[in-house]
């Protein structure tokens, strides 16, 4: 049976919570004890935290790994992971940078962003993925005979927070870590004029708003609701430059926790949903199959370009 490794993300000396999910993903693939890999510089505390979750931990401590530059980490992983292994990642902006190339260097199969494991049949991993923004799913068969690199969407497996693994930490030598890509710095987003994280009500718009001039409809609804409301949006609206980046909700934008989130014409990609951490979600969308209806508390099937002005008018009448 293949040996399973899990690459663990960490930041500022703190292990990412995805580690507690990856141990369960590892158990779904193999009954052999899984090995966590932590790479970095001065990472004893992280390795100790990993050992509470995984039965075995490989620590790769090297000054060149002080920042997780994917090109450098990949070299370290190729040096410490034996051929034929299964390597797990949490699917995120780091795995997208590192995992596909790693699979080439390990001569292993690669599957990204899986949302389920249906089991293992011989050397075939039966995984589940989503396509078309979650409207349909696919069963995927991954040949693990020569190893596999698997990126697991966060939230797919329950977190094992028992912290009872009592694992052993082993140090490994990273080997040659020279790379043709150099990390410079992290640039924080510019603060916008608005702070959507403070609003009680978010009128949040997506592709369904159709046209730049319709943005005003959302602004009018915000005015009708009052000072507790603000207008936010999903990624396509910022890409189109119709609203500023500080209004974007999602993993690549802001994380919000309003009392009410009015998702207007937003289909509900997991990247968008990753930015909503609480409150009542009201979804208004003309497509009854939009994934947002699966996570919303309240759903309305309507064209937002017609529905929003009607709601605004009613609120104005009530004043």
């Amino acid at each position, binding site marked *: 049976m293949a040996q399973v490794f899990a690459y663990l993300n960490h930041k500022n000396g703190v292990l990412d919570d995805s580690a507690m999910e990856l141990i369960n993903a590892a158990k779904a693939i193999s009954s052999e004890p899984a090995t966590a890999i932590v790479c970095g510089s001065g990472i004893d505390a992280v390795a100790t935290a990993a050992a509470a979750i995984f039965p075995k931990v490989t620590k790769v401590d090297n000054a060149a790994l002080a920042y997780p530059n994917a090109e450098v980490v990949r070299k370290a992983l190729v040096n410490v992971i034996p051929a034929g292994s299964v390597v797990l990642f949490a699917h995120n902006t780091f795995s997208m940078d590192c995992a596909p190339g790693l699979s080439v260097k390990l001569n292993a199969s690669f599957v990204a962003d899986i949302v389920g494991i249906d089991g293992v049949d011989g050397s075939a991993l039966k995984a589940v993925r989503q396509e078309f923004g979650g409207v349909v799913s696919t069963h995927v068969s991954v040949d693990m005979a020569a190893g596999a690199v698997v990126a697991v969407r966060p939230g797919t497996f329950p977190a094992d927070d028992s912290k009872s693994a009592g694992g052993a930490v082993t140090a490994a030598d990273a080997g040659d870590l020279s790379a043709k890509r150099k990390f410079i710095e992290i640039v924080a987003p510019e603060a916008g004029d608005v702070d959507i994280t403070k609003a009680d009500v978010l009128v949040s718009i997506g592709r369904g708003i159709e046209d730049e001039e319709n943005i005003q409809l959302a602004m009018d609804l915000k005015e009708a609701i009052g000072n507790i409301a603000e207008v936010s949006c999903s990624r396509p609206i910022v890409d189109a430059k119709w609203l500023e980046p500080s209004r974007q909700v999602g993993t*690549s934008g802001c994380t919000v926790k309003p009392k009410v989130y009015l998702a207007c014409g937003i289909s509900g990609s997991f990247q968008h949903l990753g930015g909503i951490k609480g409150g009542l979600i009201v*979804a208004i969308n003309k497509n009854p199959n939009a994934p947002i209806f699966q996570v919303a508390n309240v759903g309305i099937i309507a064209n937002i370009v017609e529905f929003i002005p009607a709601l605004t008018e009613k609120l104005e009448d009530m004043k």
Partner: protein
Amino acid sequence: MEILVCVKRVPDSAENEIVMNSAGNDIERDDLVYSVNEWDNYAVEEAIQIVEKVGGTVTVVTVGDADADEILRREMAMGAEKGLLLKDDAFDGSDCKGIATILKGAVEKGKYDLVLTGAQADEGAGAVGGMLAAMLDLPYASLVNKIELGDGKLTIGREIEGGNREMNEISLPCVLSIQTGINEPRYVGIRGIRKVSGVEIPEMGAGDLGVDAGSVGAAGAKVKKVDYFVPAKGEGAEMLEGSTEEIIDKLIEILKANGGL
């Protein structure tokens, strides 16, 4: 700068309602409208802007059948000078690694300073760029949303979590996958399409590329899609029904009850 941009023809998610077929094992493909993968338009625009600054050539390449010709022409109408169609029955059924293997053959037949891909396409794997770079032993960065030109190198920004941008220096030649929002892809009018309609687009097959036919296509695929399905629905939302007026009255009650008014 000689730039190769890898593009893909995909079902247009804005133009289609994706539904299951009657057999329940695939999506209904009969009346699908196809277009260029959204991310690829940003990659082509970025390549054109670089060439406008420093000179050079933009070549767009795709792996596909005869239908893929139209998307190459669309990108050429944007301003890419050359097109290249990688077409062979042996390519059918390729997984991500197969596609990267075919593209590697094309990259090695040319002399490119920079290879761009979209950060992801319809299947959402975002894998081809990183695989291609590793196969070519070139440096790679994904989710690139900023490029500054330097001498023999680029300074690039990557989109990471929370709206942060990770700045890197990367030496040329390299492979970058481009994130949406990096620029505003230019509009392509019918006149632009007409202008490139007569341009000949060369085709290359496995033999031309020096690609072992057994390493690509369905024969070489280690990741295989078994079927499509619609996942069992959970509880889902409480749906408000009735006339628009009735729905709005119910919604206002709900907003009041939850601190939204």
